[in-house]
């Protein structure tokens, strides 16, 4: 699947303006660019777990979606779209529908890694022909920046606040893409906003047009929760990739493929420093926390290289 940037940008917009996400939100950047993976003329039904994206893009009576859209609840985006896809199959079988539809559902990391995990796992295991897209901003942003299992270690969140006895979140983040890959689904990929969105676009198109279940994990920075300078989102994403904090990879039919290897892996400080949620790591005496963070990034990167070398 080739990528012609200008032609891709020339496609009709499938997420209308007038939604109420914060200025500079990474979530809708992810959505717009995923939807550009749809071929013109193909219809889609979009699912959505409860979260910022849902309350902001379908605030009655204003829908920002140019396709059919269903929000059900927080923890069941996978199951809800399973039912929609089941309806599509049944209506096709009965000769009541001629058109081609694709099924894409969006959830934040809270609705995907945590409360919606069972529903997601079920939808993946049953191999429905749908794409689950997690826009991962590493916390429950809609309810006010509480930690999730996607929150990186040491992040200062409202439920893992930094204090005299606390360095932020004590645990590492869950590796959800690997967990979904272990479901043996046809396609899993991790991406973010880099390389003029080529990586994200190609993976979206593959995910949408690969028959069966597909999962995309997209790092989508949140200026409120991460506390960086809002216009710098693209730089934050680039640093996430160049430090190997957020590697770009895909798993196609069980085969792990590394999509990008930095020529010179940058130190993790470069990714953490611009973000207010990690400010405490740069206090004198906390160097050991940075070392521990770096060690964790290195361990995961080596693990990924090993998986991709097989």
């Amino acid at each position, binding site marked *: 699947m080739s990528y012609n940037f200008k032609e891709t940008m020339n496609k009709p917009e499938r997420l209308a303006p007038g939604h109420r996400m914060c200025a500079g939100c990474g979530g809708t950047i992810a959505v717009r660019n995923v939807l550009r993976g749809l071929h013109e003329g193909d*219809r889609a*039904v979009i*699912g959505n777990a409860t979260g910022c994206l*849902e*309350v*902001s893009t*379908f*605030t*009655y*009576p204003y*829908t920002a*979606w*140019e*396709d*059919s*859209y*269903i*929000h*059900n*609840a927080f*923890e*069941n985006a*996978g*199951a*809800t*779209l*399973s*039912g*929609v896809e*089941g*309806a*599509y*199959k*049944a*209506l096709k*079988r*009965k000769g009541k*529908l*001629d*058109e081609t*539809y694709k099924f894409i559902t969006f959830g934040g990391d809270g609705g995907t890694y945590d409360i919606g995990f*069972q*529903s997601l*796992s*079920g939808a993946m*295991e*049953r191999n429905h022909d749908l794409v689950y897209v997690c826009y991962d901003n590493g916390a429950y942003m809609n309810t006010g920046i509480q930690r999730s299992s996607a929150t990186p270690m040491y992040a200062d969140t409202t439920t893992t606040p930094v204090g005299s006895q606390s360095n932020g979140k004590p645990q590492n983040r869950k590796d959800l893409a690997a967990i979904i890959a272990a479901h043996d689904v046809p396609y899993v990929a991790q991406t973010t906003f880099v390389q003029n969105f080529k990586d994200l676009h190609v993976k979206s198109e593959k995910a949408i047009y690969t028959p069966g279940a597909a999962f995309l994990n997209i790092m989508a920075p949140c200026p409120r929760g991460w506390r960086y300078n809002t216009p710098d989102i693209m730089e934050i994403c680039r640093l996430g990739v160049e430090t190997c904090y957020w590697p770009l990879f895909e798993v196609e039919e069980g085969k792990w493929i590394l999509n990008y290897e930095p020529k010179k892996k940058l130190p993790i400080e470069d990714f953490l420093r611009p973000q207010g949620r990690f400010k405490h790591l740069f206090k004198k005496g906390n160097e050991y926390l940075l070392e521990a963070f770096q060690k964790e990034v290195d361990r995961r990167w080596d693990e990924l290289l090993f998986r991709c070398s097989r």
Partner: protein
Amino acid sequence: MAKRDRLSGNEAVAIALRQINPDVFPAFPITPSTEIPQYFASFAANGQVDTEFIPVESEHSSMSAAIGASAAGARSLTATSSCGLAYMWEELYIAASNRLPLALALVNRALSGPININCDHSDSMGARDSGWIQMYAENNQEAYDNMVQAYRISEHPDVRLPIMICQDGFITSHAVENIELLEDEEVQKFVGEYNPENYLLNPQCPMAVGPYSVTDYYMEAKRNQAEGMRHVSRVVLDVAKEYKKLSGREYGLFEEYRMDDAERAVVMIGSAAGTTKDAIDRLREQGEKVGLIKIRLYRPFPASEIAEALKNVKAVAIMDRAEGYTNHGGPLGADVMAALYRAHADALAVNYIYGLGGRDVRVKDMENVFAALKQMMADGDAGETYRYLGIRE
């Protein structure tokens, strides 16, 4: 042409579903409802239905998928019992508020804890305010007939609400009884095609479902939803009239059994009504003026009609197969007493909690209830209005 057969309640409902041939059926196993999806899965496996059967990973997901399918434009349903219903509680409200006419084959079972697999109504009573239509059956025949009529009620343009077709766990679901089935073609013709106006897979016009509603809209949205409920009784009676022409069997909002000159009455839901009818027949032989009101439609609640049916009754026992933990009785007791109060009735009324967790209800137990009503009349006082039937002290 009707066919006679011997079937369990679960088989009867599964056969009704095969005849209806719905589009999407997501399901998760739980005792005692699990036979319904099992039978249905074999129909699907043998090509007897066109349905997309989705064996999901939980009841929350079975209702979620049924909602997705219904919004997409499909006729959908699921089946469950007890904790399964409790687990999908959140989704029940969403199905109703989205005005999705899907069905739930509920086989009533006690809620945990302690865990118990037998019949009581604590599961569906917990969902009584969820915005679903609730219909109950005394026996296999009624469970079958209610299932065949379900979509005609729920999909009616004036209603557009989800419907719960309830039967008693094991007592009805697993006991084999004689039953009359309609022909497949008769059922298909009666139920008809599902053609919603707006749906997700409508190529002519996309649709958005499940908005965030600010305070300015929420209350009006609830009132709008309640309007659908206000049409249910009328539609239930219209559908029943048509069904009688097809089947010869008559249904209403509730059944009045030997109520004509009754001075004492029992109001109850479900299979124990059969036992109560036996008690009534015996007592009538002895010249006692006793009768029964067996609720078929519990939500919406036919309050004024029930008060009217009870207007000449001097003492009434309302039987709840669920605790309410209100310290003054169960949910049916509260509904019936409110109906009597509004009708300015002066009948003495008591509320019994009975049959929890599958506790047997015998003819003798119901005779004792009628005896207690007789005593109340003699005393001119209801005495303790919140009672347990057959509890060991």
